[in-house]
């Protein structure tokens, strides 16, 4: 009996791990930077980048309900709005399918949403397969995220929320993990602003990234875990209890009527310090991000 259960579990995991049998491939191609595939299963389309034989889900959209954020991490990224409920300018680094930028620009029509994406092919795919539309309050810049943010520093541009979503998948652009980069992000934060980063808490890179964030920002709020861990980092002392975050979430939900529950995001708030605070950080001169990324934590 036990054996049978184990077998069934194994089959189940196999099916979950594999692409589901009813999915079909809408696009497959190699850009300058990625091996890209777009799959459709029911009404949900998935953008995948393949790296060293492993596929990574980058973005998902439900074509029947485009404002539903299908991926858990993208809902958690909305934690940024708990700290800045009325943003005037939002910067999203890493476009993917464009769902995150698109949903933000939809629910915050008065905010100016800028997105930076390295790969021009990704923008094309976002437009062709993920119902992404730029224009209006949403603009896309095709440029390296670090180069773009450095020029924003020079132009003294200010953003209320900066979302860092460029270190997904198999390859980590190491120059977007360093102390110097985070200082540049801090430099373009408007007073009261917040940086929201999409981290991955199962590799050693996580500990290094947390320490690096801790060096540059005074306050940190982490959400999720066991994979995607979303970190909201604020360049000043901010003390909020889970209760207060929850109240803010309810207010936000009432005003914006998100397709998902903002209070569920707060449910995933994780106040633990789940990394050794002493140790190396990542700097421009020394950031072995991809090696650390390949080393499991425990």
């Amino acid at each position, binding site marked *: 009996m036990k054996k049978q259960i184990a077998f069934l579990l194994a089959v189940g995991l196999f099916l979950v791990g594999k692409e589901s049998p009813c999915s079909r491939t809408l696009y497959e191609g190699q850009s300058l930077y990625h091996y890209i595939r777009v799959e459709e299963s029911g009404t949900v389309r998935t953008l995948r980048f393949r790296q060293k034989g492993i596929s990574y889900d980058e973005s998902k959209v439900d074509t029947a309900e485009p404002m539903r954020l299908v991926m858990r991490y993208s809902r958690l990224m909305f934690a940024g709005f708990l700290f800045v409920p009325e943003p005037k300018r939002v910067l999203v680094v890493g476009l993917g399918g464009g769902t995150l930028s698109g949903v933000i620009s939809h629910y915050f029509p008065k905010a100016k949403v800028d997105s930076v994406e390295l790969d021009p092919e990704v923008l094309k795919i976002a437009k062709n397969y993920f119902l992404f539309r730029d224009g209006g309050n949403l603009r896309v810049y095709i*440029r*390296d995220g670090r180069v773009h943010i*450095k020029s924003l520093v020079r132009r003294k541009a200010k953003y209320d929320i900066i979302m860092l979503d460029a270190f997904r998948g198999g390859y980590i652009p190491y*120059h977007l993990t360093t102390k110097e980069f985070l200082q540049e992000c801090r430099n373009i934060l408007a007073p009261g602003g917040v940086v929201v980063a999409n981290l991955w808490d199962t590799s050693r890179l996580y500990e290094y990234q947390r320490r690096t964030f801790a060096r540059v920002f005074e306050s940190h709020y982490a959400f999720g875990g066991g994979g995607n861990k979303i970190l909201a980092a604020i360049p000043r002392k901010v003390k909020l209890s889970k209760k207060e975050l929850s109240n803010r979430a309810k207010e936000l939900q009432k005003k914006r009527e998100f397709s998902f529950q903002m209070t569920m995001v707060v449910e995933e708030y994780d106040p633990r310090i789940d990394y050794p605070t002493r140790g190396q950080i990542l700097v421009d001169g020394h950031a072995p991000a991809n090696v650390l990324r390949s080393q499991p934590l425990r």
Partner: protein
Amino acid sequence: MAEDSIAKMRSILLVMLVFVCGWAILSIEILGGRILTPFFGSDVYVWGSVIGVFLMSLAIGYFLGGKLSKRFPKPGYLSALILVAAAMVAVLPLFHVKVNNVVFDVMVAETLGGERWGSLMAATVLFLVPMTLLGMVSPYAVQLAATELVSVGEKAGMLYAVSTIGSVLGCLMTSFYFILWWHTDRILLQTAGLLVFVALMFAGLYPRMASEEKGRDG
């Protein structure tokens, strides 16, 4: 010392010298990519700029090194070239960020796509001169070796092979291990130290052997 054992010692010294210089060039090339990336991105054009500038340096270095070795075929000059190159590599950590910042402000900040030419400019300012000096080493070594051997081609082929093996190992060690273990600036300083060490050793041992030979001939 017997004449052929002197020739052997000299040959060993030259081999060490070109090996270390070959090592240093490619090690610094890998570091060059890491130094430019925070300012100009991690795109392929950054590598294109670095490789292009390094090859240009070698071309100029081979040409000038050949000319200079003809006029002054003395080991002291060769050591001096390497010492100056080492000094320039050693001071890179003091100003590579500043140079990158200036180039970024002028060529990239307000120009979409300016990071291509910006990375080429920064690579040129930072690396062209020291790498030209290191490029001069190989033809110079061939000239010194050739005064003692009939088969210039054979000697030249051997020295270039050794120099390139040095480059292969410098490139692999730096990209596989050093950048994981150490800060870029530290690797630059270590490389400069290595260059100083072989240059001084060469300057110290090579001429002495030459005078021994002269004494015996007279």
